[in-house]
C-alpha cells in the first residue's frame, strides 16, 4: 500500500514535470527503434527482390528501384535524427524532473517538524538522500523509455508480419512480449535482493571508511586499526558478492534474450520457408520477415540495466516518496496581545519528535520588550528547546506560545555555499550593498573583508568553509543584525571562540541589541553578565528566575564557567 502510494507520488512528479516532453522522448525512442527495424527489413526485401528481378532483363527494367532505395536512404537519415532527438529530449526531461524533485524535497523538509528531524539525522542518512535522488533518474531513462519502445517495437513488428501471415504476426508479437518483458521482469525480482544488499553494503563500506579516518587515533591506541581495515575488506567482500549477484542476473538476461533471439530467428525461418513452399510468399518477403525478426529483439536488451537496478530504484522511491506526499503546516506563533510583552508562554509542554521524555514541562514565562535574559542550566536542561519553541521550530504539545517575530542565532554557525552577498541576503533580501557593508563592519569583519578581492561576491565553501570559526560567527552575527527582528534568540553565541573574539562579539551584540528583546542560552559567565534576568533551567523546567541585583543572581553567575 505504502509502496504504491510512494510510487504514485514519484510517478506524479514525473508526470507533472513535463508530460509532453516525457511522451515525446518515449515516442522518439520508439521511432528510432522502428526506423532501425524498417531499415534492415526494407534493405533485405530490396536485395532479395532485385536479385529475383535481375534474373531477366525485362523484369529488371520494370523494377521500380527508386522508391525502395529512397526509402532506405530516408530511413537511414530518419533513424539518426530521431535517435539524436530522443537523447536530447529524454535527458532534458530527466533533468527537469530532477530539478523539480530537488525543489519539492527541500520544501518537504522545510516544514518545522521535518526540519528538526533532518537536523537530527546522521550525515549517513543525508548522504543516502543524494544517492536516492540519483537513483530516481533511472526510472524514466532506463525503465519507462526502453519499456515503451521495446513493447511498441514488438507490436509494430507483429503487425508488419501479420500482413504476411496473421498467425506469424501474432506469434512473433506474443513471443517478443512474453520473453522480452518476462525475462527482465523475472530478473528485476531476482535482482531485488542483491540490489538492496548492494546499496546497504556500500553504505556500510562508506561508514566504516569514515570510522577508520575519524577514529584512527582511538583505533590505533586500542590496537584495533587492523581489525577496522579487515572490517572494511569484509564490507567490500559483501559488496562484491551483491555486485556479483547483480552481474550474474544482468548477464543472464543478455544470454536469455540472445537465446530467445536465436530461437525466434530459427522459428521464423522455418515458418517463412513453409509459407514460401506453399507459394504464399516469395523470397523478398521472406527476407523482410527474417530481418524484422532479427532486429525486433534488440530493443529489449536496453531493459537489462533498468531491470537489475529496479530494486534500488524502488528503494529510493520508498524513501523519497513520503517527503513528496506529506504537507504539514508549520506552527506559527501568535503575537502577544498585551502591550509591552515580547514573549509569553503559558503552561508549555513540548517534546522532540520520537523522544520519550518531555523537553519542556509546564513552562510559563513573561518577558517584557527590551529585556535581556540569560538562560542557564546543564546541557540537556531544555535551554535550546525553549528557544526552539519561541522561534516556532518546535511545536508545543500543550500550552500557549506567543512571541514577537524572533530570529534564532543557532548554536552551530549555519553558513551556506553561496556568495557573501547571498549569505547576507538570506536575512534580508531587500538589503543593498551599503547595508551589507555596514553590518559586516558592525560585526568586526571590515579588516578581513578588505582582504577579499571579490568583495561581496566572494564565494564561501560548503557550510561556510574558507572562513575561520571566529569569522564565521561574526558573519552569522552580521546576518542577525541585518535581520533587525524585535526578538533575538541566541543559542550559546560565543561557544568555541577564543576569549578575545568572544568578548568582542558580546560587546558588539550588546551594542546592536539596544531596544531588542534578547534571550541568550549559555554556560559561560561572560555571556550572562549583562542580563537583566537569569532563568535557571533543569529537567525542562524553569527552577529559578532571578533579577539583577539579587544575591541569587550573583550566585548563579558564579556557577558559570569563568573563561
Amino acid at each position, binding site marked *: 500500500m505504502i509502496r504504491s502510494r510512494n510510487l504514485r507520488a514519484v510517478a506524479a512528479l514525473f508526470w507533472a514535470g513535463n508530460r509532453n516532453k516525457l511522451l515525446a522522448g518515449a515516442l522518439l525512442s520508439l521511432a528510432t527503434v522502428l526506423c532501425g527495424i524498417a531499415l534492415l527489413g526494407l534493405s533485405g526485401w530490396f536485395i532479395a527482390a532485385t536479385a529475383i528481378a535481375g534474373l531477366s532483363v525485362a523484369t529488371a527494367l520494370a523494377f521500380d528501384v527508386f522508391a525502395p532505395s529512397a526509402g532506405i536512404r530516408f530511413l537511414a537519415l530518419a533513424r539518426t535524427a530521431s535517435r539524436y532527438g530522443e537523447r536530447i529530449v529524454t535527458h532534458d526531461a530527466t533533468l527537469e524532473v530532477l530539478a523539480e524533485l530537488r*525543489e519539492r524535497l527541500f520544501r518537504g523538509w522545510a516544514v518545522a517538524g521535518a526540519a528538526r528531524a533532518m537536523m537530527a539525522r546522521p550525515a549517513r542518512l543525508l548522504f543516502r538522500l543524494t544517492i536516492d535522488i540519483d537513483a530516481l533518474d533511472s526510472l524514466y531513462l532506463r525503465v519507462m523509455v526502453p519499456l515503451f519502445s521495446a513493447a511498441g517495437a514488438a507490436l509494430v513488428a507483429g503487425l508488419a508480419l501479420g500482413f504476411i501471415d496473421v498467425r506469424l504476426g501474432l506469434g512473433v508479437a506474443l513471443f517478443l512480449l512474453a520473453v522480452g518483458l518476462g525475462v527482465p521482469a523475472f530478473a528485476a525480482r531476482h535482482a531485488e535482493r542483491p540490489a538492496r544488499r548492494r546499496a546497504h553494503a556500500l553504505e556500510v563500506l562508506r561508514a566504516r571508511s569514515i570510522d*577508520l579516518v575519524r577514529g584512527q587515533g582511538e583505533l590505533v591506541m586500542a590496537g584495533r586499526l587492523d581489525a577496522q581495515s579487515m572490517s572494511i575488506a569484509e564490507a567490500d567482500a559483501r559488496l*562484491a558478492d551483491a555486485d556479483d549477484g547483480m552481474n550474474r542476473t544482468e548477464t543472464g538476461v543478455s544470454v536469455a534474450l540472445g537465446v530467445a533471439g536465436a530461437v525466434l530467428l530459427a522459428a521464423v525461418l522455418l515458418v517463412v520457408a*513453409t509459407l514460401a513452399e506453399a507459394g504464399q510468399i516469395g523470397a523478398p518477403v521472406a527476407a523482410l520477415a527474417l530481418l524484422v525478426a532479427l532486429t525486433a529483439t534488440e530493443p529489449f536488451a536496453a531493459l537489462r540495466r533498468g531491470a537489475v537496478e529496479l530494486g534500488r530504484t524502488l528503494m529510493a522511491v520508498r524513501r523519497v516518496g513520503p517527503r513528496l506526499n506529506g504537507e504539514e503546516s508549520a506552527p506559527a506563533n501568535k503575537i502577544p496581545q498585551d502591550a509591552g510583552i515580547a514573549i509569553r508562554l503559558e503552561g508549555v509542554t513540548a517534546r522532540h519528535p520520537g523522544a520519550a521524555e518531555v523537553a519542556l514541562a509546564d513552562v510559563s514565562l513573561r518577558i517584557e520588550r527590551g529585556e535581556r535574559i540569560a538562560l542557564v542550566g*546543564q*546541557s540537556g536542561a531544555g535551554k535550546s528547546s525553549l528557544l526552539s519553541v519561541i522561534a516556532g521550530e518546535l511545536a508545543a504539545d500543550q500550552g500557549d506560545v506567543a512571541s514577537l517575530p524572533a530570529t534564532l542565532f543557532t548554536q552551530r554557525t549555519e553558513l551556506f555555499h553561496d556568495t557573501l552577498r547571498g549569505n547576507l541576503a538570506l536575512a534580508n533580501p531587500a538589503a543593498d550593498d551599503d547595508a551589507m557593508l555596514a553590518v559586516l563592519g558592525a560585526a568586526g569583519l571590515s579588516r578581513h573583508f578588505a582582504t577579499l578581492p571579490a568583495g561581496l561576491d566572494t564565494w564561501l565553501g*560548503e557550510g561556510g568553509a574558507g572562513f575561520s570559526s571566529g569569522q564565521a560567527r561574526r558573519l552569522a552575527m552580521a546576518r542577525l543584525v541585518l535581520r533587525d527582528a524585535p526578538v533575538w534568540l541566541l543559542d550559546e553565541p560565543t561557544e568555541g571562540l577564543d576569549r578575545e573574539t568572544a568578548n568582542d562579539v558580546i560587546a558588539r551584540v550588546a551594542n546592536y541589541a539596544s531596544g531588542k528583546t534578547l534571550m541568550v542560552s549559555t554556560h559561560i559567565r561572560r555571556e550572562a553578565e549583562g542580563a537583566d534576568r537569569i532563568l535557571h533551567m533543569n529537567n525542562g523546567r524553569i527552577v529559578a528566575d532571578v533579577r539583577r541585583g539579587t544575591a541569587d543572581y550573583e550566585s548563579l553567575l558564579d556557577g558559570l564557567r569563568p573563561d
Partner: protein
Amino acid sequence: MTSVDAALEERSAPAAGRAVSRAHPAGRQGDAAQAEKGVSRAAVLLQVTASLLWLPQAALLAMAVGGIAAGEGASAAWLPALGILVLGVARSVADGAGSRLAFRQARSQLSALRVQAVAALCETSPLDTTRPSSGLAASTLAEQAEAIVPYVARFRPARQKAAIVPLAILACVFVYSWVAGLVLLLAAPLIPIFMALVGWRAKQASEEQLAEMGSMNAFLMDRLRGLTTIRSFDAVDRTANRLRASAEDLRRRTMAVLRIAFLSSAVLELFAALGVAMVAVYVGFHLLGELKFGAWGGKLTLAEGLFILLLAPSFFEPLRDLSAVWHDRASGQAAFEALEKLAQSGRHLVGASATPTSLREGQSGALSLSVEDLRFSHTAEGAPVFSGFDLHIQPGERVALMAPSGEGKSTLLALIAGLVAPDGGTIRIDGRTLDDAGAADLRRAIAWIGQDPHIFPGTISSNVGLGREGVGPKQVSHALEAVSLSRLAAARGPAMIGEGGFGLSGGEALRLALARASATPETGLVLADEPTAHLDRETAQEIAGSLLRISAGKTLVVATHDPVLASRMDRVITLQTPQTAGGAL
C-alpha cells in the same frame, strides 16, 4: 569563467568525488596499463569469438533465403535453422561467459585496490594536514571506486572487438565485393574524424557538466543542513526558488553542451546507418544489373548480397560499443587517480601495521615517560613546533601541559602516543623506545582520551569494548561504573548510538572515552587531550574527578587550558614553543 562557474567547478570536485589533480601523468599511464592487465585474455577471447560467430550465422541465414528464392522446399530450411539456433545459443553463452569472467576479474581488482588504499590510510598520521577528510576518503573508497569495475571489465574487450571484428567482416565482404568493402572502409575512418571534429571534447565537457549536476545534490544538502537558519529568516520560499532556478539554469547549460555532445554520437549513428543504406542500395542495383562492377568481375548471388547486407551493421557495432565505454573510461581513470591519491602516504603514524608480540600480563604499574631532543614541525617548510624539546615524567606523576595556543600541547600528546612520527629525537615510555617495532606493545600500556572522541556506530558497551581482546562484559560494566555511565548504558541497552555520537551530550561522549580508556586495567600511562573543553562547569568537574579516579596509581598527562583541572595535578608544565602561533582570527 564566471565566479559561479568557478565555484561550482570547485565544489563539483569533492562533491562528485572527482580527482582534481591531474599532476601524475606517469601514474595515470601506470593505471591504464593496470587496467589493460585487469581482464584476462580468455575473457577477451570469448567475447571476440562471440562477435565473430555472427559471421557463420549470417551466412546460414543468407543461404537459407537463397534456398527459398531458388524454390527449395521447407525441408531444406531445417538444417540452416538448426545451425542458426546452435550458433545463436553459442554466441550468447560465449559472450555471457566472457563478460562474467571480465566482470569477476575487474571486481577482484577493485577489492585489491581498496585494500591498498585502506592500508595507506592506516599508515598516514591523523595529524597530517594533507590527509583527505573522512568524507572525501569515504566517497573515494566507496562510490567513486565503483567506476573502476565497468572501465576495467569493458574497455579492453571493447577495444579488442573494435580492432578485430570489423577487420574480419571487411575481409569477408571483400571476398564477394570490393565496392561494398570500400563503402564500409571509407565510412569507418570517417567516424573518428567527424567525431573528433564535432565533439569528442564536447563529450568530455558534458561529463563535467553532469558532474556539476551532482553538485546540485551538494547544494540541496548544504541548504538542508542549515534549515533552522533558513526558517528563522523566513527564507524557505526564496531558497526553494533559488534552488529551482539554479537547477533550471544548470539544466539549460547542460543541455546546450549535450546538444553538441550528442552530435558526435549522432555522427557515428549517421555513418553506420548510411553505410548500411549504401551497401544495401549498391547490392540491390548490382543484383538488378544496373551496377555491374564491384564483384571481382562476376555477379553476386542473392545469398551473397544478403550476407553482405547482414554483415554491414555488425561492422559498425564494435565501434559504437567502444564509444559507449569511452565514458566508463573517463570515470574509471578518474577513480584510479583518486585511489592513488589516497594511497599517497604523508606523515607517518608510528607502528600502524605492527601487531603486539605478546599479551602483557597483569598490571604494568605507573610508567615513566621521557622525551629527549624532540623535533617536530607540521610541514617541511613550516615553523617548528618543537626543536630540541625535553621532558621527563616520573612514574605515578600527574602532569598538566599548558600552552598559550592549543597547538603544541595536543601535538606533544600525539607524539607521545605515536600518532605522528617526530622529525627527530626519542620518546621513551617505561625505558622502551617508541618506534615502529615496539609501538603496538607500548600502546597496550597507554590509555588515550582524545580531544574529540570518535563514537563508533554501535551500542554504548561496544563503544567501550571496541572488540579488544581481554575486554569482556565484566570489564566494560566496570569501566562504565567508574565514569558514572552505567545508568545511561542500562537505559539505552542495545540501542545504537553513533555516527558522531548522535544522541550523546558532550559530557556523555567524554565519559564514554574515559570508560574506553579505563577498560584495560593493565595500562600504566593515561594521556588526555583537553578533556574538559566545551563543557559546563558541573560536568567539567565530574569529568575531572572521573579522570583522576581512573588514573589512580598510573602516570597521567593532561593537555588542558582549564586552570581548575590543572590545579588538581602534581605539576604544571607550560610549553614554550619556538614560535607562538598568531591570533586565531
